């Protein structure tokens, strides 16, 4: 298994610290609050870590704001103690996407995903000429258009976000019909009620040796290790399961997927922590406040690269095979 590092420009803090992300967090938390107050919401309690299966009684409390979260003592994954139905989660996301302004300026991220597929295709020496995108096109306006413009040597099917059952009946049917060589799953794993069900559905509905491109938030990231639930990236409804590397590896093993590659290409840990430790109330934290006090972009970039090389950034990518 290989662990590539994805080196690129660091994004500006505006992207994570501006009004738009704050508004996004507030709106998603409003949705969660309504869900919690709604007496008809059906919740499923998670008795074990959804990544490695460790009993949740052995796990530590991570946050009790709005929704209780735990951190697995065995694999370090973070997970909500209870989750609503998949159908309800999907409905909420659809409403949110319909109401909110479209995502913009994601071209670099889109190209990174396309290049990830192209480079992997060359390295595994197998054509991935037909790819199914799972729900990313619903989440990200402009993605479908980017594939049409830049991905010439493969065909794409797009499975839109729609209210599905807990075992992803509709998604499975669409996948079976499409018979892909590769599946792209960049924003689902941390958002669904049961990631194991999702991976199982994909595995059962795709031909053998289908290559899965998975991206998700990463609990091993320095951002989560230091800031925990205070991280601006920690929006509970979008982070029902935050996998650690070993946690996702365990789940892949359990489902019968072989992992070809893992990486943590996150680019935000350093800038997020920089902002946190430069604020007045965090200016006296041992080591870190001093580290960030005089940190310029070069130091932040060096730190981010070190985190990526050490598999300790807040986003993970896996390439796995059915």
């Amino acid at each position, binding site marked *: 298994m290989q662990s590539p*590092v994805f080196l*690129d420009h660091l994004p500006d803090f505006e992207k994570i610290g501006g009004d738009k992300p704050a508004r996004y967090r507030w709106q998603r938390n409003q949705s969660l609050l309504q869900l919690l107050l709604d007496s008809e919401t059906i919740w499923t309690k998670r008795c074990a870590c959804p990544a490695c299966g460790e009993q949740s009684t052995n796990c530590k409390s991570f946050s009790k704001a709005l929704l209780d979260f735990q951190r697995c003592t065995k694999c370090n994954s973070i997970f909500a103690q209870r989750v609503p139905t998949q159908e309800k989660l999907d409905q909420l996301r659809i409403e949110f996407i319909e109401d909110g302004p479209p995502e913009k300026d994601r071209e670099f991220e889109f190209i990174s995903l396309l290049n990830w597929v192209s480079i992997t295709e*060359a390295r595994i020496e197998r054509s991935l000429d037909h790819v199914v995108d799972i729900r990313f096109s619903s989440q990200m306006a402009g993605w479908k258009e980017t594939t049409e413009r830049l991905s010439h040597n493969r065909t794409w099917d797009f499975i839109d976000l729609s209210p599905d059952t807990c075992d992803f009946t509709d998604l499975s049917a669409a996948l079976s019909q499409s018979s892909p060589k590769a599946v792209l799953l960049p924003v689902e794993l941390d958002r669904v009620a049961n990631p194991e069900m999702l991976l199982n559905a994909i595995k059962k509905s795709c031909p053998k040796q289908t290559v899965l491109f998975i991206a998700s938030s990463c609990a091993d990231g320095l951002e989560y290790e230091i800031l925990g639930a205070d991280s601006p990236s920690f929006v509970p409804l979008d982070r029902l399961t935050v996998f650690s590397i070993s946690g996702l590896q365990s789940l892949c093993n359990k489902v019968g997927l072989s992992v070809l590659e893992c990486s943590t290409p996150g680019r935000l840990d350093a800038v997020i922590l920089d902002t946190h430790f430069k604020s007045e109330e965090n200016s006296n934290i041992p080591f870190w406040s001093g580290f960030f006090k005089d940190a310029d972009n070069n130091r932040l970039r060096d730190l981010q690269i070190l985190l990526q090389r050490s598999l300790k950034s807040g986003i993970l990518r896996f390439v796995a095979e059915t």
Partner: protein
Amino acid sequence: MKLRTAIIGYGKMGKIRHKAMESHGGFDVVVACDTAIDPSATVPMVTRPSDVYDFAPDVVVCSVPNIFIPDLVCTALSHGKHVFCEKPPGRNSSDVQKMITAERAAGGSVLKFGFNHRVHDAIEEAQKLLSAGTMGDLYFMRGVYGKAGGPDYAKNWRNDPEQSGGGILIDQGIHMLDLFQMFAGNFCDIQSFVQRKFWTEVPVEDNAFALMKTPQGVVASLHSSATQWQHTFRLELYLRNGFISVDGILSASGSYGAEVLNIAINRLDSSGNPSPNPELQEIRFTQDLSWNKEVAEFYDAVVHGKPIKCGTSQQALDVMQLVEAIYQADPEWSQTLRTSATEVTG
């Protein structure tokens, strides 16, 4: 099936080959030969190469100074043995021609040369990207391969042209040239500067610079150096859609660092032109598997009749001809070579 193996030349390289063969499991090293008996050797030793045939080997590994290579290889082939031979394949292209003639005469014997850089992980990955067409047409290549002379530089047989055929270019730079030819084919147009800068009393080059072009127009530049005080291996391939580079190469000394493959595919701006500094994918390799892969390929060729892909005699000939062409392309250096040849022959 176990192949009875004789290793002629039981120094550093011979022992590396022995270890790789042991770990493969398909070889039984029955005898080793060197100028002196190594008391720590775990196999029977002899001091005359001809004595190894008393042990009825199936294959002969030839890890000796360049001057001895052609005769030992031709003898082994004439005995009907399969031969694995270190690079450089002798001292010049006529040495390789001799071995090719013996190989043809021997019929079914396998002859493989140890151009192990071809099977380093980062290089193999680069080759896959080229083969897949992901990166488009190859435009140019740049290679720097260098080290800081080495212990006993002036006394080392590698720097005695009588024994080695040349200096740093034929000894180390040859690997980079072999990779260039693997990626782009043979070169037709060659310019060079070949120099002695630090070891001016030693009759071989300590630096060689070459600029070469294939008939298809792929340009390659090489700097092979024995005054590269910071040990360096760097190979860059620039293509239509991006670039690939390999920084560092895993070696027995470890002094060239880990092997890092960098891959970048261009991002196009709204007018369709590549924007500078695209996202880079970096992959590190920390385990040198090249020795094992070479031995495995040799075994498969001998036992299963699979064709040799890495280190064929044709590749050996091509790269030796390129080395000679680089020496010849510098008028001052080729004059120096002619003068010393005249002095030797009287």
